[in-house]
């Protein structure tokens, strides 16, 4: 644990001091500037503690994969990043989550703005009981982002195109979102999240309920999206983590065991526990 703490503090200083060298750092395969820095995060559901002293740097415009066995705290962790856990009675947080130099757990934080900036896609697709168009338009409407009707339509089209769904639904925008297939519904939810122009997209096992083809589409999409967004993806599927992510973090029993570039993580992990998990010796 101490080792990880030290590393992340080191990185923090590095990114503060060498802001100008960010590009150089990325080229050298080292850590670029952080979009999100989590420091000493503890999380409790009532009396039981779900996360222990998590410190993690999530770099801008990269894909960070979170792996680990069920119940290890991956989902809980990702939900602390946009304060989705606020809705759970008895939930309590200690420590800080910095997004671009502001602590989102500081009192006075506007949770509504935060969630606009840090979008989320859930494990089970959860379209609203509205038309396909209205599903995507909803976030744009509530955040008053569209200047006109034409603008609204353009934004919806852009979001659906980005989510690689436009061609499949452009002729039936007015029909119910529930008529789409599982994979399409999930891409609709991604489009919905993208429509409000977030900077970070959190994905909680976005492909776990999908067939291989739909999964492949979502994965291609993730790789495409990282050009513009910082992505944190929770996954049970280690091949998926290997395919889409730049960096991987391994969680076990509420603790962050290791974070490393994905290639290193899957070939030469620092921790014995990580190696055991990746090679299937437990979990």
């Amino acid at each position, binding site marked *: 644990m101490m080792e990880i703490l030290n590393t992340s503090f080191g990185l923090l200083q590095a990114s503060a001091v060498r802001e100008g060298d960010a590009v150089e750092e990325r080229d050298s395969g080292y850590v670029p500037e952080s979009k999100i820095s989590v420091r000493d995060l503890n999380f409790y559901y009532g009396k039981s503690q779900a996360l222990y002293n998590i410190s993690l740097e999530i770099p801008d415009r990269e894909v960070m994969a979170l792996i680990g066995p069920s119940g290890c705290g991956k989902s809980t962790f990702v939900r602390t990043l946009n304060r989705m856990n606020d809705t759970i009675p008895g939930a309590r947080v200690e420590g800080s989550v910095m997004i671009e130099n502001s602590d989102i757990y500081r009192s006075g934080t506007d949770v509504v703005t935060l969630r606009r900036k840090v979008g989320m896609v859930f494990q089970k697709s959860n379209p609203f009981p*509205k038309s396909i168009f209205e599903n995507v338009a909803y976030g744009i409407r509530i*955040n008053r982002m569209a200047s006109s009707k034409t603008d609204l339509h353009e934004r919806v089209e852009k979001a659906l195109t980005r989510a690689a769904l436009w061609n499949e639904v452009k002729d039936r925008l007015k029909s119910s979102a529930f008529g789409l297939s599982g994979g399409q519904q999930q891409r609709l939810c991604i489009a919905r*999240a993208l429509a409000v122009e977030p900077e970070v997209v959190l994905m909680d096992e976005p492909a776990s309920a999908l067939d291989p083809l739909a999964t492949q589409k979502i994965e291609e999409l993730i790789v495409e999206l990282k050009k513009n967004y910082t992505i944190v993806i929770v996954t049970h599927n280690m091949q998926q983590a290997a395919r889409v992510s730049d960096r991987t973090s391994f969680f076990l029993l509420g603790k962050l065991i290791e974070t490393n570039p994905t290639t290193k993580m899957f070939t030469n992990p620092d921790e014995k526990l990580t190696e055991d998990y990746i090679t299937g010796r437990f979990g």
Partner: protein
Amino acid sequence: MRDAVQDKLTDNEAPAFQPESSGREIAARRRRRWLSSIMTSLTAACAVFAIAVLLIILGYIAVRGFSSITLDFLIDTPKPVGEGGGIGNAILGSFLMTGLASLVGLPLGIAAGAYLAEYGSGWFGRTVSFVADTMTGIPSIIVGIFVFTMFVLPMGRQSGLAGSIALAIIMLPIVARTTEEMIRLVPHSMREGALALGAPNWRVTWDIVLPAARTGIATGAMLAIARVSGETAPLLFTALNSRFYNVYLDQPMASLTVQIFNYATGPFEVEWQMAWAATLILVTLILMINIFVRFLTKKRF
């Protein structure tokens, strides 16, 4: 029962799936099938009985009431026995009072139910839920006496307004509780989806949760309307009755139910006939409200 049907579904030459089994297993299988068919028939019989009672009542009302329904009966006001007369003013009064009660009771009840389901997890919410449950069980005549004491006595006379208030009070807990139940059925993931887009809580409730629960809420509202359309006791104290067409809410007002009560308790055969006819009209109106609301809230998405 199902097994027997499916045995015949195929013309295949192959033997039926019947794993080799001992005599005891075969006996157990027979017993299971026998028990299954007995229980299925029993539940089916209960269903038929329940529907049959309803159909007999409706059929009897239709047979007894239909012959007396004429256009005059539908638009005329009550007249002395022997001079005809009708229930036009009573239909109007029922519509006005039920309508006004719905106008007040439905929004209030739905809002209260939404509050209970979405924000009322503390002691306050639980208390309100409990009170609403208790209120649902209060006999309607007590509501009538309450409104009589609180409104009719200070106003100095019975009125359509007082009747509407009594009906609204009866509607409130029914609508609130059904709305609460229906909203609780909306999956949490849908709320999270909206919250994650930056929707404030009240917009999640208004834009996502209420529309998702719309069909259920409408059913609850319909039940409440149907329930108060059939109320007589609270109106006897509050709206009383009237022999004239009346749209002024500060005056006593006629209603179908009170008119039925008056006709049915009268001494003459003619009046009983009119009571049957008015009953048929009331049942038909309630049925129409049901169909109308069904149509309005037909699932669009």
